[in-house]
């Protein structure tokens, strides 16, 4: 049986500002902020208070309902501020880094010699468990459920995505250690996908089932791959991990250190010289962004992640916990005269209604954040299906989330999806409906009602 995944439905969004394949060491930032918002459905309980000194890799908070899963500091330094929002909810834990970094030592672990429980405990104590996400619900994996399979997508097809082949270069040892450890945590397979024409270091690993994916975005989304390889049924769980986080897990297992270093691509049409930078999780982005040709007074949007599913962060923002991409594109907060009926050549469209992007499929576009219209009820039908490769009815499942019919949500496939699977349908939505928010709210409702 061929393990290749070919999809036809989808849309490649080609934008200006792709990263050149050179890596610079980013100016070391002094400030790091962990945002509990990055960890969906986690309510943080602090271990340290303001003013405490922590080492890199030392736990600073845990989830209210699960004390075992620790969230650790990416750097050594002093906790200088606990930012709180409404109802004293913690929105950020700000750490000022030491000049000399010291690491918490968790000790080497020979994964071949120990059993699954020890590996689990080790990953949870060292903060590495937080990299493992589960479906259903797209949240940090629950340790008491054994997954039927683990999925790792080594190919990112999102607009301007970091080239994973490039950023994973030379990390074979770490990747192999992490894969071996994860392999012991499941009775099923560890599915790893790489691009059809890639030379990914993931392709040479042992203990994995390798898939080659090709087609338009979202072929690289792990959700698409799960749906094509081994979809989630009711009562089943699968885990997903970003390949770059495998490197951190691997390094922990091999050296005992939690090393939050990560290669991040700085991309987008507002960046003068887009390329890769070596930085750390939760690092302040301002220095990296403004040292590299983004106009300090410009009207730009800085996004931690890609333009479809990333989070907007301010110029004083921080790299998201799971992001390996900073995208900067112009804001589009301006009116456009007769924008709704004049012919359009400089924006992407999947229709041909006096929009001409179908004439130039290889052109790269400089899109801004304008909505290009107003929010409306769902009207058009059949267009989501053109960009949605999962065997699910997208509009029907979105509507079931809106009217909160749990039985129907379950029947239509909510256990299989994550918000990012609906990023493309949201992008092309003529009614400008917030698909990803609708799906997230639906998943949260299911967590609450079904668990």
């Amino acid at each position, binding site marked *: 049986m061929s393990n290749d995944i070919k999809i036809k439905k989808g849309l490649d969004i080609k934008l200006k500002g792709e990263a050149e394949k050179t890596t610079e060491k980013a100016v070391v930032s002094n400030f790091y902020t962990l945002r509990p918002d990055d960890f969906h459905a986690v309510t943080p309980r602090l271990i340290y208070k303001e003013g405490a000194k922590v080492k890199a890799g030392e736990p600073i908070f845990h989830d209210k309902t699960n004390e075992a899963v620790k969230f650790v500091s990416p750097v050594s330094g002093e906790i200088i501020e606990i930012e709180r929002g409404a109802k004293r909810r913690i929105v950020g834990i700000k750490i000022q880094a030491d000049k000399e970094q010291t690491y918490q030592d968790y000790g080497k672990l020979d994964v071949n010699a120990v059993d699954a429980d020890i590996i689990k405990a080790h990953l949870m104590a060292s903060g590495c468990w937080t990299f493992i996400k589960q479906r259903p619900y797209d949240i940090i994996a629950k340790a008491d459920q054994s997954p039927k399979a683990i999925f790792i997508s080594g190919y990112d097809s999102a607009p301007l995505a970091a080239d994973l082949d490039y950023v994973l270069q030379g990390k074979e040892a770490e990747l192999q250690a992490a894969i071996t450890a994860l392999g012991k945590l499941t009775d099923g397979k560890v599915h790893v996908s790489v691009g059809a024409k890639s030379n990914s270091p993931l392709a040479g690993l042992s203990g994995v089932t390798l898939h080659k994916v090709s087609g338009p975005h979202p072929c690289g989304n792990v959700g698409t791959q799960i749906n094509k390889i081994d979809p989630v049924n009711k009562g089943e769980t699968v885990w997903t991990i970003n390949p770059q986080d495998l490197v951190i897990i691997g390094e922990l297992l091999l050296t005992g250190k939690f090393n939050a270093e990560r290669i991040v691509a700085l991309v987008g049409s507002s960046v003068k010289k887009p390329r890769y930078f070596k930085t750390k999780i939760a690092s302040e982005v301002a220095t990296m962004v403004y040292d590299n040709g983004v106009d300090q007074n410009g009207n730009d949007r800085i996004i931690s992640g890609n333009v479809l599913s990333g989070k907007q962060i301010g110029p004083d923002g921080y790299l998201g916990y799971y992001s390996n991409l900073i995208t900067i594109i112009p804001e589009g907060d301006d009116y456009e*005269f007769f924008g709704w009926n004049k012919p359009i050549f400089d924006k992407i469209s999947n229709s041909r209604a006096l929009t001409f992007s179908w004439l130039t499929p290889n052109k790269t576009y400089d899109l801004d954040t304008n909505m290009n219209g107003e929010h409306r009820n769902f009207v058009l039908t059949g267009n989501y299906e053109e960009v949605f490769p999962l065997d699910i009815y997208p509009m029907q499942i979105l509507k079931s989330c809106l009217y909160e019919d749990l039985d129907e949500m379950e029947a239509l496939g909510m256990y299989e999806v994550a918000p990012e699977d609906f990023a493309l349908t949201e992008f092309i939505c*003529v009614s400008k409906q917030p698909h990803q928010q609708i799906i997230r709210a639906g998943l949260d409702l299911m967590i609450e009602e079904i668990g």
Partner: protein
Amino acid sequence: MGLKQNLHNLREKYKGTKMAPAFNALHTFLYTPNYTAQGGTHIKVADDLKRTMNTVIMALIPCLIFGMFNAGYQHYLAVGEIQAVTNGFFSSEFWNLQNFILGFWKILPLVIISYGVGLGIEFLFAVIKGHEVEEGYLVTGMLVPLIVPIDIPWWMLIVAVAFGVVIGKEVFGGTGMNILNPALTIRAFLFFAYPTWMSGDKVWVHGAVERTKEIANGSTADAISGETILGSLAQSHPVDYSVMDMFYGFIPGSVGETSTLLILLGGLFLIFTKIGSWRIMVSAVLGALVMGYIFNVVVDAGWITETSKFYGLMSTEFWHHLIIGGMAFGIVYMATDPVTGSQTNKGKWIYGFLIGFISIMIRVFNPAYPEGVMLAILLMNVFAPTIDHYVVQGNVKKRLKRGKLKTA
């Protein structure tokens, strides 16, 4: 820029007031708003609902223009002032200023009434309910004048539009929520409330009704007959139009429904722009051909005799059904309404096919009113959610089965 800034300031002034939706509707007509994407994708596709609806209107404009020429042509032909067209689609007997001017002054008021009343009600509801004015009526408002008889009294149209917009759409929550196609709801209302104005042989040509009254009052002028082809066939009268006349549209009928050629071009445009569903259009044509062919077979087999009142329509060659009456117009512009039609791709095949099939069936068997496409589409509008339900259940069952296989 002055205008842009002034309008922006006005919008800020109206923000939060009752009048905001009404102002915004006018404002967004001039300028696509400055809203930026928040909380989801940071970029959005270039299309919005206004552009989508506008594309449908563009596909309708040729039918409207043709309808204006045809209104004049049918009138002058009926009163005997001009000769019938002889040389093809671009005949000068048809495309001349005299025809156009008469049609223009007859049809323009219908367009103005349709948009004025319909949009007025839309604005009113938007202001009362505090939601934005939605674009759905832009298409409905253009469809309505094209599917009514030319001489329809204005007050009837006003009443019908008001009924259609309120009962057909607003009570369900506006565009995107309605069950029945609003334009057809308006037409159905006219049809059932004022049947003498919606069928027969006196309403399809300008002046026919008036002339009938004059004759009744003792005038000696000749009566104007404006029978549609379907009407003739239903009465088993001889049809004296050639097939090409029917295809080009030089025949009496509702204002914009006659020219199959232009409707075909409009349909191809909608398919090309990916706004109209080709699945519905193709399957509806197939459905109509199949039903028409079945009737032909029945006639050929001799099961029905020339004395039967169904003989005229049943013996019509099956593909002629597509170029007479409102069939083509209904398939291209009304059956493809995404809100009231089937919403799944598989469902669209079934939905379209049944529309074509049932249209011809009603057309043949309905003695009072020999046109079936309106009723067929309204009927299938009602059944579209049922079709979708079974299509979606197929997907649900597959998922359940997959789960059971695993646990077994």
